[in-house]
């Protein structure tokens, strides 16, 4: 019975939700508290979604749900018209997530860090060398390529984490306060890389308190879905 149900679900195209990336009636519970509920969105290739709201309004929790790290308490996410639970690994392959922490190991150099993540993202060895070099140049890290993580400043660590976005290609970028600790020049580089990503048909969802240049970004105010 169950297999029949699954089969029929994968055979019939979802009628209304033909959009590229969408979520319906998402809810998030942290501890015993309902953080947000009934949150729905749809995004097409090339679009950006800016999450607004005060601290604690659920921006980070929402991004973790979108990344597939947490499960929503209710609702469903669809990628290319299919629920992400159907093929979680295929969805994961199209996601790059930048969270609060930069995942920099004190004992690894910048080049090693980017190389490691790139190889796990399944990028070919020959392309990887080129790709990491380009990513480091973009965020002004080329001169620091062999510097170990322990010697980096907060802003430099963040730049390494952002450079990971440019290693290989992923369609969906999820950025949680990406501009934290960045200087003006790096914020510009971030803005440019987001613009280039969108021009290629990529989607960006980010939360930020800083001013990042995002032409025609859609806005989503978390307070509209809060339950207080």
């Amino acid at each position: 019975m169950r297999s029949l149900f699954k089969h029929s679900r994968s055979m019939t195209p979802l009628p209304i939700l033909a959009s590229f990336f969408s979520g319906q009636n998402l809810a998030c519970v942290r501890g015993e508290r309902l953080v947000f509920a009934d949150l729905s969105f749809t995004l097409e290739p090339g679009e950006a979604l800016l999450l607004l709201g005060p601290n604690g309004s659920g921006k980070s929790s929402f991004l973790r749900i979108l990344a597939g790290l947490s499960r929503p308490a209710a609702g469903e996410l669809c990628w290319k018209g299919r629920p992400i639970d159907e093929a979680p690994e295929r969805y994961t392959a199209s996601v790059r997530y930048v969270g609060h922490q930069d995942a920099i190991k004190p004992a690894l150099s910048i080049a090693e860090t980017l190389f490691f993540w790139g190889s796990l993202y399944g990028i070919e060895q020959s392309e990887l060398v080129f790709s990491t070099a380009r990513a480091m140049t973009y965020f002004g890290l080329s001169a620091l390529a062999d510097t170990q993580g322990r010697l980096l400043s907060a802003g430099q660590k963040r730049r390494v984490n952002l450079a990971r976005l440019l290693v290989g290609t992923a369609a969906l970028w999820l950025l949680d306060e990406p501009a934290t600790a960045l200087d003006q020049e790096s914020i510009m580089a971030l803005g440019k890389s987001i613009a280039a990503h969108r021009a290629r048909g990529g989607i960006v969802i980010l939360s930020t308190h800083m001013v990042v240049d995002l032409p025609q970004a859609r806005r989503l105010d978390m307070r509209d879905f809060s339950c207080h």
Partner: protein
Amino acid sequence: MRALIRLIHREMKLVLRQQSDTFLVLGFFMLTVLLFPFVVGPEPQMLERMSAGVLWVMALLATLLSLDRLFQNDYEDGSLDLLALVPLPLTVIVLSKVIAHWLTTGLPLTVVAPFLAKLLQMQTDGVTALVIAMALGTPTLSLIGAVGAALVLGARRSSILLLLLILPLYIPVLVFGVAAVEVASLGLEGQQAPLLILAALFCATLPLCSLATTAALRQALDSG
């Protein structure tokens, strides 16, 4: 498979560059074992009688000491989030962590154990059995430990909690590890039996603990 090797390679690189971890574990093992002759006196019979037990208990405690770093660092610095978002099954990442953990703790412990056993007057037959038993038993210790290390992520006082969770589960390995040595040094029949049971324990924990650790990590990420 290539990804698995790359993951293990990174783990090894991290541990070897920070050196202290492996040496701490080895140092703890050797020093605590060497304390016993001071306490119980130098009589060979007495030392031999307790050598297997002392070596196994200390190897077990040394393993426990190193479990903290298995997932905790990656959890705290955000690497675990990123590892979970790599297009690989989380179980592969768990396995790579466990293998790297064994290579940097279980294996070194197995290598130094025969020298310490000789110091404690263990007979040659017993030493051979001890090395085989530790080679079979320490991977099981790493596997069971991984479940505990994943379960306590995000908990306060996690190292004590880990100890209480994991120590009881180590008892079977301890029992058959000591039995293997005693049966061999007494020259009794059926010397392979305890070793076979240790091998069976490893075969059972390999799939069970990998799955349990994966589930525990998902839980930690979900609430993280």
